[in-house]
């Protein structure tokens, strides 16, 4: 072993979304082929992520770190090279092609599995180009391949497998090509005749792509920008929805119990949300909203609600009342409608026809960044100069928008963490149909101003209210009644803070 090899730390990424969908694939994690290397960090065997992972790597600061090739290695490298700021030590960015799988323990075969019929069915799906293949893996017998085999090669594999049919796990790699749709359809028809043997065999179909470099012949414009770690879940950037629909049909026949998990993973893949990196960097373990310990922090009040709930009127009334108490107060809107608003609307328009769905996420990020820009340019210094700061919408609107738009917002809490915790949020809750009626006269509608999105925002805010202790007010109640409730409560908070009575 050379000095260079001795000084090397090899990192093997944890299994990713494809194995989340098919945990049976965990059995394919190589166990022994790293033995010659003196030191390694196998995230499949050492449960470590987030800060502990960074600390573990920091201990090897004098060594060269090499991350294994493959889509997840690529994703892991991207995060680590930024988080550790030592790109030169992490070595080259891993390639996107997955390393050939090797087998250790296979499970799933039934004793009475009709192997002959099964092989006959599946062999019939091969077209000689080897683009739709079934591969059976057996312990210690066959190196799994995700690259297409020729018909002859497939026949040899099948011949060998026939001789030893026990303990098999079957993979069905689907390589994008111009005829993939037809072959998927043929596969669906075959399995649909009698899905039970195929289910019991543990047949796992997945897209065998080269990610963004996927073949484009026959494809359409990008539906998404496929992130590396989603390898296996999507057919690639340029493959139209019909291919995905057919895959879903096949999956429904083979694994109906996993359909909704697959749809969830596919949804995030299309939206460009990198769940694998989020999990490995443990975003949620490290991004709790900041607790502002500054004694001089002003009282933070916020009024939230969907469009048409009457926030602005109450904000004005609250501000006037606090000014009347002789306190220094200011009002801020961190959720702005400015130039960027037109920009993000344009971006969203580019999603027409089901394309560029990843731009939905970009739209959210831009809005959150705009709030941060506002924080540093207009708000931060005012926190030191006022007794009370009133927000017309607060960070919770971002949270609700994230959950409302794509069911999971991995970025807002982290991006918005500099905003101080609110002392009180008043939520003006208005039924969706009434909100629609109130905003109906506005000239310009946004993508959010419709019954579906408003109802989602409303419910997300109510959920946050429940968990974060908002004061919920019925926006249908008389204005004066809600105003009195807000002012009385705000006065109590101001007194409790000692802002009146000589203790400012």
């Amino acid at each position: 072993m050379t000095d260079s090899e001795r000084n090397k730390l090899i990192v093997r990424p944890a299994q990713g979304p494809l194995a989340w969908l098919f945990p049976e694939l965990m059995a394919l994690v190589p166990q022994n082929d790293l033995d010659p290397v003196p030191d390694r960090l196998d995230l499949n065997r050492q449960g470590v992520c987030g800060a502990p992972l960074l600390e573990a790597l920091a201990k090897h600061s004098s060594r060269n770190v090499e991350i294994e090739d493959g889509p997840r290695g690529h994703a892991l490298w991207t995060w680590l090279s930024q988080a550790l700021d030592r790109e030169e030590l992490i070595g080259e960015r891993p390639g996107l092609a997955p390393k050939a799988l090797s087998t250790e323990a296979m499970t799933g075969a039934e004793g009475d599995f009709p192997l002959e019929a099964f092989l006959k069915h599946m062999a019939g799906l091969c077209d000689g180009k080897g683009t739709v293949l079934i591969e059976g893996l057996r312990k210690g017998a066959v190196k799994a391949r995700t690259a297409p085999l020729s018909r002859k090669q497939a026949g040899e594999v099948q011949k060998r497998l026939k001789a030893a049919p026990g303990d098999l796990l079957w993979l069905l790699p689907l390589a994008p090509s111009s005829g993939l749709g037809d072959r998927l359809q043929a596969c669906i028809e075959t399995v649909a005749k009698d899905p039970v043997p195929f289910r019991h065999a543990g047949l796992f179909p997945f897209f065998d792509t080269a990610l963004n470099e996927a073949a484009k012949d026959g494809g359409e414009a990008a539906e998404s920008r496929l992130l590396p770690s989603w390898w296996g879940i999507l057919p690639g950037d340029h493959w139209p929805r019909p291919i995905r629909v057919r895959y879903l049909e096949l999956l429904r026949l083979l694994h109906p119990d996993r359909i909704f998990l697959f749809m969830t993973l596919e949804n995030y893949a299309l939206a460009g949300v990198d769940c694998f990196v989020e999990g490995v960097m443990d975003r949620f373990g490290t991004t709790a909203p900041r607790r502002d310990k500054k004694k001089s922090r002003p009282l933070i009040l916020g009024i939230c609600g969907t469009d048409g709930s009457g926030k602005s009127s109450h904000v004005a009334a609250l501000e006037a009342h606090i000014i009347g108490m002789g306190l220094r107060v200011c009002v801020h809107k961190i959720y702005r409608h400015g130039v960027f608003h037109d920009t993000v609307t344009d971006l969203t328009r580019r999603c027409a026809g089901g394309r560029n769905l990843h731009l939905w996420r970009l739209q959210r990020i831009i809005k959150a960044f705009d709030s941060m820009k506002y924080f540093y340019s207009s708000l931060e210094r005012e926190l030191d100069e006022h007794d009370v700061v009133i927000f017309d919408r607060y960070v919770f609107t971002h949270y609700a928008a994230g959950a409302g738009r794509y069911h999971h917002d991995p970025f807002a809490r982290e991006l918005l963490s500099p905003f101080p915790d609110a002392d009180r949020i008043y939520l003006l809750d208005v039924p969706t149909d009434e909100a629609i009626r109130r905003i109906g006269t506005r000239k310009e509608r946004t993508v959010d101003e419709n019954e579906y999105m408003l109802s989602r925002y409303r419910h997300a805010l109510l959920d946050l209210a429940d968990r974060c202790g908002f004061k919920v007010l019925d926006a249908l109640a008389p204005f004066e009644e809600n105003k009195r409730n807000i002012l009385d409560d705000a006065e109590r908070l101001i007194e409790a803070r000692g802002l009146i009575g000589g203790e400012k």
Partner: protein
Amino acid sequence: MIMPPDLDYFPGLFLPDLERARLAGRLALLAERLRSRGHGVRFDLGGQGLTAIETARALRDEGVRRIVLVGAKNDRVKISILSEALKQSGLDPGRPFITKQEGVDIHRPLANRIESLAKMDLYLKDDPTLGATDSCLMILEHGEAQPRAGVQFRRKEGRLYRLTEGRYGSIPAAVKEIRFFPMDGMVPDWIDSEDALTALVIKDSTSLEPYHLDDWASLLDGPMKDRFRLFVEEPGPGHPPACGGAAWAVRYGIDRPDLRDLIQRIVTRFFPAQLPLFRILCGIYEVGADPLEEMYAGNSLADRNAELIKLIVP
């Protein structure tokens, strides 16, 4: 008679919702009984991987005239979703029936049972059969001697395989051993409830006019009131999809920080490759989302994009 599907975030680690599985098993038995008596009642136990709207359209296309929604406690939101989809398809969902299991949480008592980490550590450490990475974390309710239609296990070559069969699909996964933990809560009298349900279905299929679904609900106040008490409850307003994310987290035990820490330590130790997924699930719970329910409700980005884009495309 329709039951919404089980939604499983972590098929490699947790069992399906056993309460739901047991209800599905009971319904399957009921279906057999009714078929043998010649009643034309169709059961859909939600195992076909169809979204709510797909289910509703299929029923409409089949010409189904009358529908009863049945679910376990954790199915409440899904029943709301399905009910809404049925209405959108022009079908009357009637009044759903949800099992009433107050004080009997299949998973929580078990979660409580393994709450002591020191004890759990010792327990697992001394048990070589649970050391392999292909074992599952088994959380089971009170041992029942009779085979259950909902969750079955097959022993093969010294190993037990988790296997659910029937119309609600299969989830084969190898386990080293099944452990039965004693439950503190009571087990409801399912025979009573099944008989009551049978009577209800027979009554419906023989004597009631189509769409008179209110009559079904009236049984709650009728002579069978006592027998129904254990089985059904008045469903309150279901959470809309955006804020209904708690049930699965409660079932997994990650809604409580102490249990979440415990399960994370178990995952770290025995299923290290799945740690990123576990952390993602904790994060999804933190933001109050439930993506699987969103998919069931047909709220995927691809599904909703088209109608939302229309609002801003000139």
